[in-house]
């Protein structure tokens, strides 16, 4: 009986082990920016956070955020927080903006990065002014 239970337990543990089959999507042939969150929103400032995945370690010559009332602002049409060269080429970055936001107005922010040949915009995140 004990032997059978230990055999069944071992097989079940093996099943748990083999089912831990993780998966990664194919990597894009360029670095990807992902806007994570907007935090610490007060009457006069907000903190934007983003992440860069860069499997080929491509040089990032510029990075930052674009924000405004339009979800599809670009570096030429929106308000830009330019953070310059990203030394590590991948990882998290953030920026705090000091600005009075209109109460109940919806704003959008998205991260951006530039390589020598591409401009990559992260996903757009909305937030509302509280003053």
């Amino acid at each position, binding site marked *: *009986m004990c032997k*059978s*239970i230990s055999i*069944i337990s071992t*097989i*079940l543990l093996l*099943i*748990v082990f*083999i*089912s831990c*089959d993780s*998966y990664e*999507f*194919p990597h*894009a042939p*360029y670095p*990807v*920016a*992902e806007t994570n969150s907007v935090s610490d929103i007060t009457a006069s400032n907000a903190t934007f956070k983003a992440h860069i995945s860069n499997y080929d370690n491509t040089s990032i010559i510029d990075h930052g955020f674009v924000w405004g009332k339009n979800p*599809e602002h*670009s570096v030429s049409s929106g308000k830009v927080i330019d953070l310059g060269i990203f030394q590590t080429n991948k990882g998290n970055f953030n920026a705090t903006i000091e600005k009075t936001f209109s109460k109940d107005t919806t704003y959008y922010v998205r991260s951006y990065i530039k390589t020598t*040949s*591409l*401009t*990559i*915009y*992260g*996903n*757009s995140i909305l937030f509302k002014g509280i003053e």
Partner: protein
Amino acid sequence: MSLFYKSTLLLTALLLLRASKFNPITLKSCYYSFPRLIVRVTQMKKGILLLFVLCCIQHTVFAQKDFRKGFVVTLSGDSVKGLVSYSEGLRAYQKCIFQESGNNNTREYMPSDILSYGFIDNRLFRMKTIDVNNVTQNAFLEVLVEGPLNLYRYGTFFYVEKDGKLQKLRNDKKETYQRADYLTMKKVILDSNEYIATLNMLMFDCVELRPRIQKIRLGEAQLTRLFERYNNCKGKTSKAYKDKKPWIKSYFGVSGGLNMSTLHVRTQNPELWPVSATYRKSLSPLIGISLEIAAPRVSERFSFHSNVYFLTSKYYHYSLINYDSYALRNSVTVDVNQIKIPLSLCYTFPHKKITPFIKIGASHTINLKHKSELFQETETGNIIVVNKGNAFWISSGQVGIWGGFGFLKSLNKKYDSFIEFRYEQTKGLLATYHNPDLRSGVTNIQIVLGIKMK
């Protein structure tokens, strides 16, 4: 090791070698990680089906009949002990296969050859002459209750015997027409309920049973109880031959295993193509409890099964769609925590050292915590824009059908261990109300191991 196990092991090994693309000439196989190998085996549906069919054939061919301790009573009234083949089908009423103690010769008795046959602490069959489809013939009737009033069974028919006179308990169906409204008549099928009149007549001398007779149904459990009460009412001994078997018995168990799940999403809407695909197979452990409800007195073979399983499924799909002026890279992730409640009817083959069983039933899946995400990169010239959002809405539950087979092995007097293979198809994962243009289906293959009470 018996031929059966050897053959099953050999077939399983052949299936695994084929799944790993093993080349018998170069003695090399294409590389597959073990999880991927399992997935590949499950993709070989024909192979699995073949394995199951071959196992069943082997079991049928090599397995012996379900012989149990019993006896036959010859025409001269002599009782001979030995082993009797146990059957729950119509065969039990038509012939008796007997193996005398200390003798390996098997004899087949027809109803005219012996007076009765039976099993120790179990069923008893007695030869009687009855009408079957308007033909008078001898048959073995199963004795359900014996006393002043005897109750017999022949398939789905019941017979009552008093003072040597055998009567069938009839409940013929009658087609008749009833007025549905002022203009039309509708056809209805009515029960004749003749058996109630027969029972009233035969049990008239036991007044206390009259209200019970009016409500009785023509089933083994209710009739057995009624006849036992009548015989007790008459102050005589009453014998129910299967009274050592419970009417209802429940067994609990614990089980765990592996769930291999495939999500299929289809659409005619080109805007939804990024999420339309057969997703990468999800491999996840499952754990749960099982409940089996059986009526051993009615059938030792059929039982009702229910389980509650907890599992998590993760589906992934990546696609690259190239248009004239831009390209889309789509990464879809679906993550669902589920409680699965499969219900089934189980047929267990005669008990052996390893006992096969088959199941068929329906299932309900409750989707607890769930998330679906589409991560999309749009590449236009030298600009790339990332969009992230909900891929689709997931429903709160799914219904499905499933079937499976497995094997039981006795651990000791109290517990059995089992292994089970299941194939399930559920009607979608997506909430059709919120995703009217999307159709989805989920196919699950499960391997379940467990321990259950006997």
